[in-house]
């Protein structure tokens, strides 16, 4: 009733993010649990190898799994928040007709559904790839580690996130519905405290417009910056890990890093453009040129995108340094780490290209949409 099929397509992004996080966690945790079963049977020389193997598994799992889960949680929460905030008008209309807050809020369980789809697929894929991982981690002379199914992992990685995100979405929806109906249907935005600074004469109208767009959509700005953070951190980490861990691990992490980073970037740019759709349409109707429109509305996000990218670089560098040189310093299987300048430039280059492409593609797509459609889809 409240959430249409089109929205479901957008929720696909959440599924992808959840898929990546659950995928990695599934096979590593499963391996970790299964490997502990032979703990008692290992002794002597093998013990050293076994311990190193376990540490390596822990290491990869801690870094990638941890970062992935964090990213998945932040992205999902923000996406839900942005969705609800951006569609306040719809919910206002339903409220005006007399639909109860609870009834509207409950329809948000579908956010949990997209989590479920992603997590379940990730869990399945994690199991599918397990034989490969287990073989990769096998040590000659040691008892073979059998792949066992652990219900508690299913509960923790699939059931729990689904329930948590459904509950979060419903709860957040319920909270955001506790607003004045008229302001919801009219503006679609929470009655913002208008703390407008007096208009600075030095700014041109377009610069002013750009600033107020950003100020009015702080959560979009955050989302863009965060997505760039993810892309930057995941990609560089993946490239570095392919040197530090075994090849198969490195490749996997790299692939996940690329999928996740691109998805995040895609979601962020779509969100940024959708958030500005009506402004773009109005400016178009008034005859502003493509360039002026792009400058005033979309370019404002660029500094924040770069900031996110920079923080991502620093973050992964610090994390890797701490993990490799401090926490796992005495483990010989983990090589030393130093900042990958080459990887940095690869990441930066692809990032700029992707960002520019996505912006251009979407700006073109929006230009083709009739003004009326944009306005009525508000």
């Amino acid at each position: 009733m409240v959430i249409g099929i089109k929205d479901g397509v957008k929720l696909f992004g959440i599924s992808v993010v959840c898929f990546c996080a659950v995928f990695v966690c599934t096979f590593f945790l499963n391996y970790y649990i299964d490997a502990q079963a032979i703990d008692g049977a290992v002794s002597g020389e093998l013990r050293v190898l076994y311990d190193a193997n376990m540490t390596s598994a822990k290491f990869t799992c801690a870094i990638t799994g941890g970062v992935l889960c964090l990213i998945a949680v932040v992205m999902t929460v923000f996406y839900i928040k942005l969705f609800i905030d951006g569609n306040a008008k719809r919910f206002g209309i339903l409220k005006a007709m007399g639909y109860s807050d609870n009834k509207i809020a409950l329809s948000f369980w579908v956010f949990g559904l997209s989590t479920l789809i992603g997590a379940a697929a990730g869990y399945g894929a994690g199991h599918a790839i397990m034989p490969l991982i287990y073989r990769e981690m096998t040590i000659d002379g040691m008892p073979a580690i059998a792949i066992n199914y652990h219900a508690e992992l299913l509960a923790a990685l699939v059931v729990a996130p689904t329930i948590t995100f459904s509950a979060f979405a419903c709860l957040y929806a319920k909270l955001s519905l506790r607003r004045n109906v008229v302001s919801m249907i009219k503006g679609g935005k929470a009655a913002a405290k208008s703390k407008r600074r007096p208009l600075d004469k030095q700014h041109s109208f377009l610069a002013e417009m750009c600033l107020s767009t950003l100020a009015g959509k702080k959560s979009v700005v955050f989302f863009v910056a965060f997505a760039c953070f993810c892309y930057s951190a995941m990609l560089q980490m993946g490239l570095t890990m392919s040197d530090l861990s075994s090849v198969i691990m490195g490749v996997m992490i790299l692939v996940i890093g690329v999928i996740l980073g691109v998805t995040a970037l895609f979601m962020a740019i779509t969100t940024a453009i959708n958030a500005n759709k009506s402004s773009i349409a109005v400016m178009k109707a008034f005859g502003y040129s493509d360039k002026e429109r792009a400058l005033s509305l979309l370019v404002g996000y660029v500094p924040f995108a770069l900031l996110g990218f920079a923080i991502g670089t620093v973050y992964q560098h610090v994390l890797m340094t701490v993990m490799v040189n401090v926490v796992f310093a005495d483990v010989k299987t983990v090589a030393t780490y130093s900042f990958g300048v080459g990887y940095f430039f690869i990441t930066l280059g692809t990032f700029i290209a992707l960002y520019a492409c996505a912006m251009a593609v979407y700006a073109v797509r929006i230009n083709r949409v009739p003004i009326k459609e944009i306005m009525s889809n508000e």
Partner: protein
Amino acid sequence: MITATDLHKEFNGGAVKALRGVSLTIKQGSFVAIIGASGSGKSTLMNVLSGLERADSGTVVACGQDLSAMTDKQLNEFRREYVGFVFQQYYLLPHLSVEKNVRLGADLAGNKNYLREIEAVGLADKLKAMPSALSGGEQQRVCIARALAKKPQILFLDEPTGALDESTGRSVLDYIAKLKAERGFTMVMVTHNRNIADMADSVVEMNSGKIIGVTDNPSPKSAYEIGW
């Protein structure tokens, strides 16, 4: 019956006084037209009377219930139970087809026969169309059908024929009047067209947040008798 007493409503911390002491009585089953200049507070008054918005001070008693004493939740239930609203800006749900938009209203009243309303406003051939593919007048008619399908006891219409041409306007008004006779609901309509006000039992005129005149109309005309 709706009784409003000394309603005040300000916006922007008092910079705009939209209602400045409005008192009004609307009889059960009557048709009241509200006219007045743009910005005189008509929509604001309708919002307050229908429980969409709260006045800063003053009371509204509708269907025997004191709206001013209600919580938001109770107001919600009140609207669900009693109120139909045709918005000045239509406010259709953009991702739902014409049929589904109307069903949204019908479902609240358990009305299975909502196709009748869609036909009556002349949109039977647009059931599956999305709002963005409709003309302004068509959107307005969907909004009217949605409100009627909810079978309200009080129907608020904010400028419901603003986007309609004469012949469509007359036929829609005629249908609304017919339903009103059939179901006996109370009707409050804002209009800029004084001719349409001739259909009402009484006409309330507003100016800058106040009621400046109430004229009873002993012989209301039908939709086809009024001028346009």
